């Protein structure tokens, strides 16, 4: 008869990891004012109760004037900020600095999902056209249809501004594709070139670790070596 063979070795790193205890929920603070402030900070993304407390205690140590200034800056940011009438980007005036810049190619529009994408593309310092911020992508599942997005203003823009090229810089997923096809269908009669950013192997990436879909796509949409070298 065979005897079952048991080894009772519990991996140390598994046991050493303490379970999160929910003590923070029961944080006892001497002041309600303090607690309210902590709760407000903890609503911010990436900030837990402990970090919130540290930030609040830091503010408590500072001059009253300085904290007032801090508060005012935040309030002013929220109340005074505008969205560009033309492209939907954040702006201090009715038209944002990108749209107002005469050095930028006004007949080139890059369509992005949100303001963060504008910042990302601006940081490349490679794009000298203008933007159009959709404010989301089409996803009926999340209750977002075309009418919730700045699509009408985009079609108007293309008509009135005699746009030469529309570049889609949306996330490469199904909803991104849905949005691209939808807009493309809306404007297909207009004499405007429509392109999308390249998809494929990331710069500095390794082929071995790329997923098959990306690799396959890179092979299908391969580039002439001449243009590849000149673009580096």
């Amino acid at each position, binding site marked *: 008869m065979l005897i079952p063979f*048991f080894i009772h070795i519990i991996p140390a790193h598994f046991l050493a990891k303490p379970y999160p205890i929910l003590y923070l929920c029961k944080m006892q603070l001497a002041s309600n004012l303090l607690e309210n402030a902590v709760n407000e900070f903890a609503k911010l993304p990436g900030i837990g109760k402990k970090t919130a407390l540290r930030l609040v205690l830091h503010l408590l140590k500072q001059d009253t004037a300085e904290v007032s200034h801090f508060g005012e800056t935040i309030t002013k940011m929220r109340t005074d900020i505008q969205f560009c009438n033309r492209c939907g980007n954040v702006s201090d005036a009715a038209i944002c600095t990108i749209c107002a810049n005469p050095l930028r190619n006004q007949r080139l529009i890059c369509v992005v999902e949100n303001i963060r994408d504008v910042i990302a593309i601006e940081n490349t310092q490679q794009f000298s056209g203008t933007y159009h911020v959709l404010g989301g992508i089409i996803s009926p599942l999340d209750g977002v249809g075309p009418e919730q997005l700045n699509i009408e203003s985009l079609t108007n823009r293309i008509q009135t501004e005699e746009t030469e090229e529309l570049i889609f810089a949306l996330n490469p997923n*199904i909803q991104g594709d*849905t949005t691209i096809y939808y807009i493309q269908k809306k404007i297909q009669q207009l004499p405007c070139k429509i392109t999308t950013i390249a998809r494929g192997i990331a710069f500095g990436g390794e082929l071995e670790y790329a997923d*098959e879909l990306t690799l396959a796509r890179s092979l299908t949409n391969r580039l002439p070596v001449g243009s590849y070298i000149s673009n580096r």
Partner: protein
Amino acid sequence: MLFFRQLMLTQFRNYVFDSFTFTQNVVGISGANGSGKTNLLDAIHYLCFTKSYFSRPDAQNVHQGMQGFRLQATVTRQQQDFELLCILRENNRKEFLIDGDAYKKFSSHIGRFPCVMIAPDDVELISNGSEERRKFIDTLLSQLNEDYLKNLIDYTKILQQRNSLLKAAAEHNRLDDALLDILDEQLSERATNIYNRRNDFMQEFIPAVQQEYESIAGKGDEVHINYYSQLHHNSMQRLLRENRPRDLYLQRTGAGIHKDDLEFSMQQQAFKNIASQGQRKSLLFALKLAEFNILKQYKGFAPVLLLDDIFEKLDAARMHNLLHKVCVQQQAQVFITDTHKERLESAFEQLGIGFELVKLE
């Protein structure tokens, strides 16, 4: 072949911590009811499929009163060793690592370490609705072809979007035709890919199942299997176009590959209406063994076979046949559970092969 050499379970189901080492191709697991026989098989399934066989949420697999679990195994696949690790963190986040590298997408693990499980409730595959059969075919095809799984995931997502749009259209009494057109186009592309793949596969799979059935049940009752799909006669695009008024009325998509089915019949009648218990079980084994054979053929090595409580379902002669087929001919690692240790022992001794027994308390 795929071979599990060591398995460690921490806070998984009824295990607080246990470690098992396997040295033989045939592993019998015995123990009383509730001793964790099925859980041990499910742990192996977890490591092959990143999820439970019994489609329950991950959190339900944690040992009562504890948080998180950890499953770890050393497996050998064609002379190469791999370390598989599945961790459910305390916050219910699941991680899956192979040789210390975490997967970004769990779907890329599917198919690398194939296994086939046969559990008592699987007869539902034959008697229940078509969803079970689609799931069975999808699970198998996903292991053979990564592209299929990708198409299937996309199809499900787009279908959800389309149904949401149909619902929203009914609520607001206004429909964006252009958007529905786009979704139909996206859906059709995936549906066609999936249909072609399923159709090709059935040419090979259906004869394989029939052959297995014959060898288990004998030549007498011939079972007929038909792959049903609305796409046999119409393209997906046309189906969606023709069904649009109906879909708008019902607020869901009524046609497509999500209505496909495998129809079993015997003597021109539906199998589930006239088949005996024994015939159902024989068909179930035929389906699963055909799955096993196809996996072996495509992968070039034998998958792990998990047999849960099957002694209850077969007479001694059929059992011997089945065990001989999978343990001796196929050279696969087989895990078999039973409540009676003696029954396992005598069955294995008859086969005259090396085996080991794990007794659970």
